[in-house]
């Protein structure tokens, strides 16, 4: 019969083994992808005019989406965290809809929305369907939902008391949030924007359906992977994939570093 100490050890060893196998699986995927190509192939693929355009468009649209997501996520996250009102749980669930919807369906919903009289009226001012603005909108639908979750969590972790004190000292609620709460939430805001940015970088389905996959127009990095795969250019697809993995890693590390200091 084993002692409690050895039972505990085998328990933790089993957990460690499961975690280790999972980590090994992830690292194997990445290592295999990295080993598939050579630095020479990689540079050649990235030097192609179309790929350089898609890198530039991805960086620009992801940054625009991250900023727009943050602009939405700060007030909505605050409302969900501090607001007390009827229907709050319904609103909370509704804001998760873009996260749980299949990505292709998000694209299809956008496409149909912009065929309605309201959508056509909007398009007469700013065209979205099959345009760069459409890429940003498709990324925003999902990126903003993640940013809202992150900001809500950030505000949940911040005590409302300093804000209340600021109000007794002469601030309106808005000014107290601006002067006291938002500076304290700055790392959460950075994390929310980064998460929206990273989600947007990998977004493919809604962009394909709503903004199309036109080279040198609405082609972002995931579109490049798909287009290169579809013509059998596996090395270019792998080169773009490695670039996306590297960008995702940078965001992951940045968010982790910011998160540890929140």
């Amino acid at each position, binding site marked *: 019969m084993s002692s409690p100490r050895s039972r505990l050890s085998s328990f933790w060893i089993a957990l460690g083994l499961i975690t280790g196998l999972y980590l090994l699986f992830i690292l194997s995927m990445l290592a295999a992808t990295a080993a598939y190509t050579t630095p020479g192939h990689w540079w050649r693929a990235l030097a192609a005019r179309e790929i350089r355009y898609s890198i530039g468009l991805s960086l620009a649209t992801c940054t625009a989406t991250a900023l727009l997501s943050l602009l939405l996520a700060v007030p909505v996250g605050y409302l969900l965290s501090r607001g007390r009102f009827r229907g709050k749980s319904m609103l909370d669930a509704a804001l998760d809809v873009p996260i749980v919807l299949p990505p292709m369906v998000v694209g299809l919903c956008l496409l149909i929305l912009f065929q309605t009289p309201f959508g056509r009226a909007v398009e007469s001012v700013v065209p979205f369907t099959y345009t760069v603005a459409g890429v940003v909108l498709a990324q925003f639908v999902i990126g903003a939902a993640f940013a809202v979750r992150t900001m809500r969590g950030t505000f949940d972790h*911040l*005590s409302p008391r300093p804000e209340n004190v600021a109000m007794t*000292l*002469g601030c309106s609620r808005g000014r107290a949030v601006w002067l006291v709460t938002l500076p304290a939430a700055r790392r959460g805001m950075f994390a929310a924007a980064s998460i929206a940015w990273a989600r947007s970088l990998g977004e493919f389905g809604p962009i394909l359906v709503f903004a199309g996959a036109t080279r040198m127009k609405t082609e972002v990095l995931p579109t490049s992977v798909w287009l290169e795969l579809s013509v059998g250019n596996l090395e270019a697809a792998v080169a773009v994939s490695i670039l996306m993995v590297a960008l995702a890693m940078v965001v992951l590390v940045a968010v982790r570093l910011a998160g540890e200091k929140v």
Partner: protein
Amino acid sequence: MIRLENISWHAGAFRLENVSFEIPTGRYAVLMGRTGCGKTTLLEIICGLRQPASGAVKIDSRDVTGEPPGVRGIGYVPQDGAMFPTMTVREQIGFALRLRRRPIAEIEQRVGELAEHLGVTSLLHRLPHDLSGGERQRVALGRALAAKPSVLLLDEPLSALDEDLRDDLASLLKRIQRELGITALHITHSAREAAQLADLLFRLDDGKVREAS
């Protein structure tokens, strides 16, 4: 002077009904009661952070019931000090005066005076995470007093401190209240604290406030 007239407040099963009491100008009142009996709610109603269902809050004979917290002329010190996380001690104490757009020289002078009075002059450059519990409460007190409020509301300001520090800070509170002639309402669970500080002692039981001394 703080005067509550028939204050009622409801939240689910919890209710305060027709709470009335008065603290004359310049007196130090202590309010005691069981955990969850509504002491903090009552303090927040006086602050203007919660609106009562009915009744009136008067400060220095002025009905402030419908007024926002910032114009009531109160200083508020919550339980844990509630420091502004990104501001230095100097910025915290000068906060109310900066909001009122007072000249920088006046703010500096007032911050210096209060810091000296409260024994935090050497901490002016520090951020809250570098302060001990007692230091935080001193800074919170300075921040509440900077704009020269007529009443001071303290929500268990000594509860997180060890006993020696508690006695020191209790003496400081009493001294400052006397020197400034300010009307104070202090919430506590501690009978010892109440005995040290109270000119007037109130108890909140079953949604009603009664004077105990």
